[in-house]
């Protein structure tokens, strides 16, 4: 097990979940957790249980909706879908993250100025 995985910053998990649902369509909790791990190139240190807390939080805020359905191999599972509000929220969050990462990049990659 690699030890240099990233600890998730507070609040980022919600965005990852929303993004996953946006690209994959309706998905159950396990699928979401696996997908996040895969797309992040197994870079994210994910305690899968926290996904469920995020799902409850998002559902409470009306950003995602849940319904019971059956999985690929016919197992009963709860499927989550993005709501309209969720799509809007994701767009806003994405813009926010882009700006933040731009700024961070620019600041961190600025060449060192020589002291006189």
């Amino acid at each position: 097990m690699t030890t240099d995985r990233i600890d998730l910053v507070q609040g980022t998990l919600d965005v990852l979940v929303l993004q996953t649902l946006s690209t994959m369509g309706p998905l159950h909790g396990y699928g979401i957790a696996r997908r996040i791990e895969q797309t992040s190139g197994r870079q994210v240190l994910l305690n899968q249980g926290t996904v469920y807390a995020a799902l409850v939080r998002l559902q409470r805020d009306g950003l995602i909706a849940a319904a019971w359905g059956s999985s690929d191999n016919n197992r009963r599972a709860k499927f989550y879908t993005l709501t309209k509000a969720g799509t809007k929220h994701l767009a806003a969050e994405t813009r926010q993250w882009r700006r933040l990462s731009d700024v961070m990049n620019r600041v961190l990659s600025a060449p060192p100025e020589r002291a006189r």
Partner: protein
Amino acid sequence: MIRRLRALLERSRSLFTTQALDAELEEELSAHLEMATEEHVRRGLSQGEARRIARIELGGIGAAKALHREHRALPGVETLLQDIRYGVRSLRRERGFAVCAVLLVGLGVAASTIVFSIANALLVRPLPFADPETLVWIANGTQPDQSARTVQVAYVENMRRNSQFFADVAGYSPFYREGDYHLAVGNQPQRATGMPITCNLLPLLGVEPIVGRNFSEDQCLWNGPPAVLIAHGLWVRRFAGDPGIVGRTVRLGGGRVAAPAAVTVVGVLPPWFDLAALFAPGTRVDFYMPFPLGPESNRNGNTLALIGRLRPGAAPDAAQAETAVLADTLRQSQQLNMFNPRVRPLREQVSGAFRPIVYVLAGSVGLVLLIVCANVSNLLLARSSARAKEMAVRAALGAGRRRLIRQMLTESVVLSSAGAVVGLALAAAGTRLLASLQAPVPLLGNVRLDGLALASALGVTITTGLAFGVMPALRSSAFAIEGALRQKGRGSSDGRGHGRMLGGLVVTQVALACVLLIGATLLVRSFVRLLDVDLGFEPARAIAIRIDPGVRFDTVARRTAYYDDLLHHVRDVPAVQAAGLIDVLPFGFNRLWDVTTREQPATSTRSTAFVRIVSEDYLPAMGVTLVSGRHFTTADREGSAPVAIVNEAFARMLWPGQDAIGHVFTSSDVDREVVGVVRGTRHQALEEQPGAEMYFSFRQMPVYEISQSYVVVRGTSEPAALTGQVREALARAAPQLPTDDVRILETMLQQTLAPRRLVASLLTAFAVFALMLAAFGIYGVIAYATAQRRKEFGIRLALGESPGRLRGRVLARVLALTTAGLMLGLAASLPAGRLLRGLLFEIAPADSVTFATIPLVLLLAAALAGYLPARRACRTDALEALRDE
């Protein structure tokens, strides 16, 4: 915002569905685990290893669940619910304490909710008309006598034409009498009450018939086609709620109708519409008929009680000033009676007189609630020392002081809420009982539990819960934090502060109970005085039945023959001792006539007297005492010299210091010689001294002077049996005569006393409750204090102190506390008694008997309440008490 609301909604929903949500999560997580395990197996791990890794990756199911719960619920509310559940559980554990406290709060909530419902119906809830706040009552002058307060028709027409302040003015005639009419639906006519109203009254009030319509214009004219609107009650009683009644005719006789005639029913009024409940509470109106406005009705003098609708923004004062000017101007061009307008809000006229009574009740119920709070506080305090250990443990486990206070307060609100459930049940029964009373209190039928009353009960519940909870909560939480663990679990007293607090509560309770008891005693003593009043007549075993026929007599001889025949038949009933005729009954309608004498010409002040037209047997049958002279005889008849019997007040008024017999006076243009003097009767109200009264023989009165008549019967049997026999006799004499208007004289008396009885009994109930609470409080505190000092008592007894002395010591403390409470209570009772002044009758607000008795009663109750625990204290076995350590 919406997101927040939704979140709140979701979270609150999750409070009630915790278990379902947990189960759902459980299922979701197990699906997760199985999927993860499968995948690991596919990658080549063994089943067991795959499951283990899946679990590790999920990160512990318990933690996931806790995280889940935390995110879905309202943490504050969950704590609250936890506290409530805890409170309920701890109350269940201490059932005796809980039952006591719940009952106390329940009675308090019931009392306050009932009183609030009365206040609500009488003073708060708007009158059931459109825009009730612009409705005003327009009286004539300020005299209490109703006939003098009515207004002549010409003024009304003038106001309707010319007023800038009134949108409209309408009226009704208050001179209708109960049972004036004979209403025949089938064959047998029954007595019915009709109220004449001006045709614009219903539109002015914004009232529409539920079936049919208001009177048409031609029906509102003098001698127009006869029409009636019927009250909902009559519609249901006599016409079985048949909507087809509209347009049909009924036969109506008596009253202002010369002979029974067909009258068209034009509509049915809504069930809530009841003018009698507003203006003549305790009576009933069966139908309404048009009162025409015009020169013909103007000739009848003062006839109308007026209700005005103010234009938007118009003030009653301005309208009154304008009306006065309009009236003066009109009087310069026409010969009219005086009109001295007094305009005030309609609600004031209807129930303003009951405002002080409602305030007294509200004040008393406030005192009761305070006592309840003090008492429950007492119980909680006593209990709090028993719970000191529990609190200390909670504090040690990390509960902050705020958390402890919060938990204790939640518990007391749980307690008071349980009490509120009991209280509301009692209040529902109480208000239903009140609404069904046939008492002369306006709008009493409207007393009910409504949203506002429930809100008030809720307010009272929460306030009392917090009020009685706050002291014990502060106390025991402080106690816990200070480290109750240092103290020994039992046996040691928990400080002087605690004792002082309990003592203070006892003093407060005694003081409040003292005020209530004194107030109630003053009212009850007034009531008893009133029952002892010399009425001037004897109501026992006497009934009155209305017997005027539905037709008018054309000659005095025919009328005399009719009544003589009826009276003859009534007297033939074996159970009848005496029977006589009169036109007005006590506590009913009254009329005043001017009287003059030759010795005292019109220059001096006007003298008036009440007229009663009677048969020669009336005064003996009624039990009115003859002071001097003689009774009427059949020889005092049409054509013989007119004679009169007067009462002592009348004789004093016209011939002070002289014997009235033989004097002559003039009234209604007839000179009459006084042949007898009788004692006065209380006719207006029990509280009022008899006025000047004069009796005339019905044989000597012209036909138009008798509009109603009652036969008063005194019997040897009980009223119910007597009534049946007399009605049978009347039916034999006049088969078509409705005899369903029967009054039992004692019942009439009770009715006039009903408002007073209501207030006195409510206040007495409050006071008795307060006395019991105070005694209970004293008992609790003393029992607690002696239990705390058990060891000390044991030692004292062991060292040879006599049990009697020990008992005395305990009782001395009881009496000291009670005396302190009494001092405060008596001091507060003096001003409180003065507030009651208007409700008292021949009892001074500082009545010495009351002020001497009540402290004794309270002392006695306190001594009794203190004696039981004192006796127990003296039985303490020294060894046992010490061994307890």
